């Protein structure tokens, strides 16, 4: 029963259940943005650099890139896992990392700009 599932979610909130909830398609209802602010991690794109890099996070965390430059930037995974599109000044892009691993990404507009997210 749906309502019962919600109840157990609110009582036993945790990374494993969060991951399970995402797999069950419930991410939009109980995503980390409202429930777990600690799981929201920010990367600033400023002065043609990503910082911090490398960034280490827990599996299931959402990373948000925000462009502070007057010049647009992108954050594009080297494996094609994620692609931000052009971020203008103050634009943001978020991606949720479900699986542990090391993820390299590049600004395709300025390919010297590279960064790494380590998911534990």
């Amino acid at each position, binding site marked *: 029963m749906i309502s019962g599932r919600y109840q157990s979610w609110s009582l036993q909130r945790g990374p494993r259940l969060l991951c399970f909830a995402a797999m069950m398609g419930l991410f939009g209802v109980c995503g980390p943005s409202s429930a777990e602010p600690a799981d929201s991690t920010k990367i600033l794109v400023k*002065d*043609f*650099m990503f910082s911090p890099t490398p960034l280490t996070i827990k599996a299931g965390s959402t990373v948000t890139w925000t462009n502070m*430059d*007057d*010049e*647009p930037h*992108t954050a594009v995974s*080297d494996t094609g896992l994620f*692609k931000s*599109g*052009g971020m*203008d*000044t103050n634009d943001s892009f978020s991606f949720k990392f479900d699986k542990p691993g090391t993820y*390299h990404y*590049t600004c*395709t*507009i*300025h*390919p*010297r700009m*590279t960064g790494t997210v380590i998911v534990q």
Partner: protein
Amino acid sequence: MSDESLLSRRKALKCMAFGGAGTLFALSGGVLAPLDLAMAADTKSAAKLGKPLFVQISDTHIGFNKDANPDVNATLTQTIDIVNGMVEQPALIIHTGDITHLSKPAEFDLAQQLFSRLRTTEMHTVPGEHDTTDATVTEYFNRFGKASDNKGYYSFDHAGVHFIALINVLQFKPGGLGTLGADQLAWVAADLKGQSSSTPIVVFAHMPLWTIYEPWGWGTGDADQLMSQLRRFGSVTVLNGHIHQIVQKVEGNMTFHTARATSYPQPAAGVGSGPGPLKVPSDQLASMLGITSVSVVKHPRSIALTDTALA
């Protein structure tokens, strides 16, 4: 002049950077001679340069609205007025990329609407990296992909000149320069096979096809493989945009030239944190924006490049 003597021209490498407004260049015998703009303004001297074959417009960045130029639509309109006001209309226009700032459909639509005011209707384009940031990389190709069958590279002939349009903004290697790629290089080899060495060649792409400043990605990693194919030709002109300022180099029979933007200037190589928009006093902006006009001079055969600033 025979192909042999064209090839035997001195291979001296001359590397020059010009930042001034309204400089005119005539290429003769493989050596670049800067001429005075007053000469170009004088109809008699200008007539000797011949009818402009084409005009290069670059880096229009429609959608940009920051301090460095809050109105890129106005400066593009001003650019179009200059082209439309030329005594002899160029046969064609080439746009060396970054048509838009963020690859948005509305930006492409507005750019096309502005371009439609050009009296010269034939326009050939290549994309810049700002034109290909949409997730599916389709906005540019939906509008301009027909010429290349959506590959991004193609060639055509006009007035005895062979034009080659190349794309070097799609296959970035992390930390590296732009890339042409093996497929495109093989296509160029096949395309050039039937061309006589005496045919003037014009190559254009968005990012510079020689390394101007590697830390900012101002170059193309595998451009050497392109140059080795072009070396047998008596007259090769390589045109790019991307860096929003004029940098020119002559190497043997090849002239390399980057055009000003119509949108905003960028800093000289290595000045500041990166190649972003450069804010200059508003009364100086127009002098740092402009176009390049290219003519073929028949006797002696050469190619002349003229840079015109908006002010």
